[in-house]
């Protein structure tokens, strides 16, 4: 900053500086002349000799001015002025120049994309912005031996012992993990196979927990793996596909690696790479196995005075803890450890050895080994692209004959212009193609068809369904505005409850699941039962246990209830005794045209725990039975009729005819949910001019329409508008509106995203 101010002040004082330089040189010449006069030369001779000795004054002044660096900026501004003049005076030339430049820039935008991705990408893990690291991978340092003196900056890597002390004593981190700071190459041999080369890392038991990753198949390590011998290996999704063609029987296979025999216990989710961007490990092994995997060394214990400094340490702060607090605590623990480690062994250099410091750094971008390595070469690539475009430009400009000579500084300027242009165009392109806000809505993307939303009570988390094959369940952090997979199938996420759901044949296959409507009901303290209608692999209501006692909720599949005659059910709602209600939207012999015509097409089904069959609740036939909800006192239930645009109240004791209904007007209500003492329903505007008016064919509901969310008093059926918004493509398919604090969340039955915005607009 200092130097910027210095340069800025020079720019402002430019005129004075010119004068000063002239004066300074004149002073020099005067002194020289005087000295020569004293040696007996004539005044003319003396002055001439002084000048000769001094050299070319103009050139020297020019060179000195260049030391004032801001010359470049000035020339750039002059260049812009020149360009403006040139464009006006020579239109044909300008069009040709702009076109060829645009072509060059466009073709090379991709390179910038890679460059940008490598330098700025976030780790593909849960809530990367909440991740911190105690290691300092951007500092250079030795990976074994000692680290002396704080002048070198924060400690680069940690020893296993130091990690253990922090893990066991720290009160400011909710979890800490350590990982081998470099990607290792190993030769492994699976039972009955040839030896092969793989890449992998030794990691602590908390590795996956800290990164917020659960296994796609099998299980991952737990902190317990740091304490007991753990001859396990977790393999990457990529390696699993490549080496085992995604076969589930990979779990339990054993492999031999140097002195270790390891059993495969899990597969990470697709896209998980760990903590280092640009590296794709094939497998992870517990640090506890170090002696067998890296034989002949004990890197888990430090023998004074040498420390094996080789680990990255990552963690997540407890809620409300600041980085400063955590850093203070970590350093207190670290100092105690250093003092007891070195004791009084060091004599005079003791102070130097104890002068070490841990820094807490944001780790959203993970470790940057690749950044360090590749950013130079990518920058070179970018610059060469710049040079190419520069050649185009200089060719054009020499033809234009305005510029007769092109120097080094002009080349720099051209590259600068190119970089700025590329940067700007990439920013614009990204904003268009990705998850940028639109139509007053912000989005969280990469969730396929999140049809329904439920709030986990007392937390900031929403659960979204995924009504596309393999989309599973999603956990949305409404504060961080991030989402991750909550259920994607896998052995570790199933714990069948045969007593309650004896009729359920096999656990839900996460790859097939198509989860639609949701209902969340309290179970034991801090735990909930989540019901989800499913069309994938079977027509059913799938049941999960949601455990909200930890930092973030987890979901375990516990059972299912198959629907009668493989009827697809749309929405589900549970009474507190576990009795389920589910809606049939359109019976197979009816069509959507019937719904829009207001003819009855569906019904409500009821299942009571322990029974094998569903019961049809006669009298609940409506036009497009859609969302469903139960009352807080279990005495009533509310059914959405999409065709009649109504929310209809029924008595549980006698559902043979409706009690009352709320008549909505502009929009076709989809799901309904009780929030506090009000029902909230939402849907898309029927008569959307951009979609050619009201839907007539089933594909018409795919068209992006405006949306409305209303609250309804279930006692009086009085309607109050909660929010509305225009079509906001690519978001569409509004099905559920869910207020969380002062934010309104909107689901979608067909987009790849959920939407949110301020509740009050």
């Amino acid at each position, binding site marked *: 900053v200092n130097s910027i101010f210095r340069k800025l002040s020079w720019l402002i004082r430019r005129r004075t500086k010119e004068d000063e330089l002239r004066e*300074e040189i004149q002073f020099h010449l005067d002194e020289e002349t005087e000295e020569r006069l004293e040696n007996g030369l004539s005044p003319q001779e003396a002055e001439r000799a002084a000048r000769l000795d001094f050299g070319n004054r103009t050139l020297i002044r020019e060179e000195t001015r260049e030391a004032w660096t801001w010359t470049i900026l000035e020339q750039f501004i002059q260049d812009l002025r020149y360009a403006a003049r040139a464009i006006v005076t020579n239109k044909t030339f300008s069009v040709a120049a702009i076109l060829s430049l645009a072509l060059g820039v466009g073709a090379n935008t991709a390179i910038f994309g890679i460059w940008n991705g490598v330098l700025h990408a976030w780790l593909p893990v849960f809530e990367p912005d909440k991740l911190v690291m105690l290691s300092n991978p951007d500092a250079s340092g030795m990976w074994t031996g000692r680290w002396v003196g704080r002048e070198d900056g924060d400690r680069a890597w940690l020893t296993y012992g130091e990690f253990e002390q922090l893990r066991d004593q720290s009160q400011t981190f909710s979890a800490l993990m350590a990982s081998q700071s470099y990607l290792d190459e190993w030769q492994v041999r699976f039972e009955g196979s040839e030896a092969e080369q793989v890449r992998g890392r030794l990691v602590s038991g908390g590795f996956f927990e800290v990164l917020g990753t659960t296994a796609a198949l099998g299980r991952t390590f737990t902190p317990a793996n740091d304490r007991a011998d753990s001859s396990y290996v977790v393999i990457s999704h990529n390696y699993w596909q490549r080496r085992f063609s995604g076969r589930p029987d990979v779990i339990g296979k054993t492999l031999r690696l140097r002195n270790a025999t390891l059993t495969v216990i899990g597969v990470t989710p697709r896209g998980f790479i760990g903590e280092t961007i640009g590296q794709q490990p094939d497998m992870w092994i517990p640090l506890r196995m170090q002696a067998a995997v890296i034989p002949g060394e004990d890197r888990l214990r430090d023998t004074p005075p040498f420390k094996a400094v080789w680990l990255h340490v990552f963690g997540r702060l407890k809620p409300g803890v600041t980085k400063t607090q955590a850093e203070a605590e970590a350093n207190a623990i670290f100092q105690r450890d250093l003092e007891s480690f070195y004791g009084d062994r060091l004599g005079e250099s003791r102070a130097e050895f104890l002068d070490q410091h841990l820094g807490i750094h944001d780790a959203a971008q993970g470790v940057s080994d690749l950044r360090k390595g590749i950013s130079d070469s990518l920058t070179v690539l970018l610059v060469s692209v710049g040079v190419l475009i520069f050649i185009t430009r200089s060719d054009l400009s020499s033809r234009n004959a305005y510029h007769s000579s092109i120097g080094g500084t002009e080349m720099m300027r051209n590259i600068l212009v190119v970089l700025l242009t590329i940067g700007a165009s990439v920013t614009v392109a990204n904003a268009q193609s990705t998850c940028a806000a639109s139509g007053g809505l912000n989005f969280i993307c990469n969730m396929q068809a999140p049809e329904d939303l439920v709030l986990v009570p007392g937390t900031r988390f929403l659960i979204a369904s995924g009504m596309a094959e393999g989309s599973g369940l999603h956990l949305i952090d409404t504060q961080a505005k991030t989402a991750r997979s909550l259920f994607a199938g896998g052995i570790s996420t199933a714990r069948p409850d045969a007593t309650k759901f004896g009729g359920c044949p096999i656990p839900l296959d996460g790859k097939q699941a198509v989860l639609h409507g949701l209902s969340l009901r309290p179970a034991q303290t801090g735990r909930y039962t989540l019901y989800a209608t499913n069309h994938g692999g079977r027509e059913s209501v799938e049941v999960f246990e949601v455990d909200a006692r930890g930092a973030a909720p987890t979901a375990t599949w516990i059972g299912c209830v198959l629907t009668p005659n493989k009827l697809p059910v749309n929405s589900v709602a549970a009474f507190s005794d576990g009795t389920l209600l589910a809606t049939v939207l359109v019976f197979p012999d009816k069509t959507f045209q019937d719904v829009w015509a207001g003819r009855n097409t569906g019904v409500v089904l009821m299942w009571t725990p322990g029974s094998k069959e569903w019961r049809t609740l006669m009298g609940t036939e409506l036009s497009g039975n859609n969302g469903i909800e139960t009352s807080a006192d279990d005495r009533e239930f509310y059914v959405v009729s999409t065709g009649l645009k109504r929310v209809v109240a029924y008595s549980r004791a006698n559902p043979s005819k409706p009690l009352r209904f709320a008549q909505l007007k502009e929009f076709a209500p989809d799901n309904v949910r009780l929030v506090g003492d009000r029902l909230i329903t939402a849907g898309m505007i029927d008569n959307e001019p951009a979609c050619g008016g009201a839907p007539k064919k089933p594909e018409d509901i795919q068209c992006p329409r405006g949306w409305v969310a209303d609250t309804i008093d279930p006692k009086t059926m009085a309607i109050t508008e909660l929010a509305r918004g225009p079509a906001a493509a690519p978001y569409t398919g509004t099905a559920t509106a869910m207020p969380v604090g002062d934010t309104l969340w909107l689901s979608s039955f067909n987009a790849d995203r959920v939407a949110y915005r301020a509740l009050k607009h």
Partner: protein
Amino acid sequence: LRGPEHGHAIAKHIRRTSEEVLKVETGSLYPALHRLEAQGWIAASWDLSDKGKRARYYRLTPSGKKHLVAQQSKWQAFSRAIGLILNPADQEG
């Protein structure tokens, strides 16, 4: 050379202490001085010379001093290396 000095005195100092070996164009000293100033390694201010004329005086900044020490040790290592190459016998003895 101790304390602040103006360009001319610096040029003279270099010429004299290098036993006249480094006597190139005196003028090239000024771009160099200004570059050092831009780096923040030296600072300049206007003062009266001992003959009562306004002159621009340069002095070493703390960061300049640090840089000098670093460069000096690099240079010594380098010149020793050159010495070893040119005169291996001398150094081994």
